[in-house]
């Protein structure tokens, strides 16, 4: 399906792990407690092959933070958490500052920020390591059902490839899993492969 070898995937996993580390550091500073983020797997597939298993989404409603970015390759990056988990993460992050009733009202803004931190960290790690610069839109948060999410990912004809990162996030004893999805056009994917090859060439 794509021109990515195991080596490419390993390099991407490494890059995103560095990004995840940066995101965890920023989040720790905000919550004043230890935060761990890891990227256990990276997957690149055709968007037609995408389903709830590949996204590790089990029904229900999702909070999705989206940023469009451009540079040597353009993509739409979407960070997905189940709505319940999103609320719990935000609740933990806000700590005792706010009561549970207030959380729902501030969820959008806080989720936007959480998504923004993780997306920016992953994008900037990629830009730093692969030596290019990226520009990005501001984050946008919305809530959607699993079907709506899948439908939107599949119908995107201009971006037939998806890169999926499974993300594990733990804040103060709470463990959460989410997915970071990059929607890529064929040429964007090809450009990404070129940059990874250059990077691999430079270190070998």
């Amino acid at each position, binding site marked *: 399906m794509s021109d990515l070898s195991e080596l490419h995937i390993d390099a991407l996993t490494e890059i995103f792990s560095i990004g995840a580390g940066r995101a965890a550091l*920023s989040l720790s*500073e*905000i919550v004043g407690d230890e935060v761990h983020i890891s990227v256990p797997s990276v997957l690149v597939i055709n968007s037609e092959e995408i389903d709830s298993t590949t996204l590790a989404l089990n029904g229900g409603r999702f909070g999705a933070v989206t940023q469009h*970015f451009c540079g040597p390759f353009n993509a739409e990056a979407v960070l997905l958490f189940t709505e319940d988990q999103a609320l719990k993460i*935000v609740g933990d*992050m*806000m700590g005792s*500052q*706010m009561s549970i*009733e*207030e*959380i729902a*009202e*501030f*969820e959008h*803004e*806080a989720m*936007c*920020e959480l998504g*923004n*931190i993780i997306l*920016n960290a992953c*994008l*900037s790690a990629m*830009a*730093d390591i692969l030596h290019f*610069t*990226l*520009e*990005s*839109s*501001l*984050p946008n948060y919305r809530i959607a059902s699993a079907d709506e999410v899948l439908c939107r990912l599949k119908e995107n004809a201009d971006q037939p490839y998806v890169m999926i990162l499974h993300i594990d996030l733990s804040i103060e004893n709470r463990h959460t899993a989410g997915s970071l999805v990059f929607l890529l056009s064929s040429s964007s994917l090809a450009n990404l492969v070129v940059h990874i090859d250059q990077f691999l060439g430079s270190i070998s």
Partner: protein
Amino acid sequence: MNAMDTRRFDIEDIFNAINIGLIVVDTDSKVLLWNDWIAKHSNIKETDALDRQLEDVFSEPVSPPFLTALNNTLVHRLPVVLSTALHRSPLPLYNAYEANQPKTRMYQSITITPIQSQLNESCCLIQVADSSTSMKREKILRSHSEILKKEAVTDSLTGICNRRFFDAHYEIAVAEAKRQKHPLSIFMIDIDFFKLYNDHYGHIAGDNIIKQIANTLKSQLSRATDVIARYGGEEFVLIMPHLPREAAEQFAEKLRSAVFNLAIPHVKSHSFNQVTVSIGLCSGIPENDNNPLNKADTALYQAKQNGRNQYICLPLGENFEQ
């Protein structure tokens, strides 16, 4: 020629008129722009801020996550948002600087975006929005919603719980009594000859009787777990968990005499010449096929048949089902 060249106003005027804080800093986080809004809420003049490091401009410290976010934007050129929920008040900005007004630190919502200077330097635009007003609005909406929630379960005439609340509470109380096998007592209370009272004294007087009796019945309750509700027109229902039959019968008599002792005249009441109530009650540990409410209703019917101004008690869950 582009639109900017042909405009007939100064862009500085826009920056200063806009109802949002704008700061531009360069790569070394030196201030290049400080609009009137920021000057007003920080009490620091533009001339005192320009060309100084942003964090040195303020007399109070700026929050570390804000500085991290600013640094990230300067280095990585990616936009950053700082939410009110997670930061509250990152910059020392205040809502009121007028005399006699308490100085309150402003809740802020901040967006930091990378911009390029004319000299091709990497700069950052910091936009600060005052979220205090939206916080206030949220609080007002929340208190309204609490009032509405309370109204939704309250009977408007008597101020006691309404049927909607009772129905939900009843299900939970019966299920719990079944599960924990503890005795439950349910009382159906009806005002005797109420229709005749209404016809003779009028609807306003009728409403007053309903209110008075609701208050009297409610005043007999002392446990937080007991719930009384207006069930229908002149009918009330009372549910008391953990109350065995003997105590329930004594309580029913207490309710009956409390109403009787009000001694409200009712010339159309055939037997008593005053307002009275009939009470049907059932008491016991509910079993699976029991419907305690029906049982209490049957008991109430029997109390009416027996001559009113009395209670009848039927047992629950002892296989006396009809």
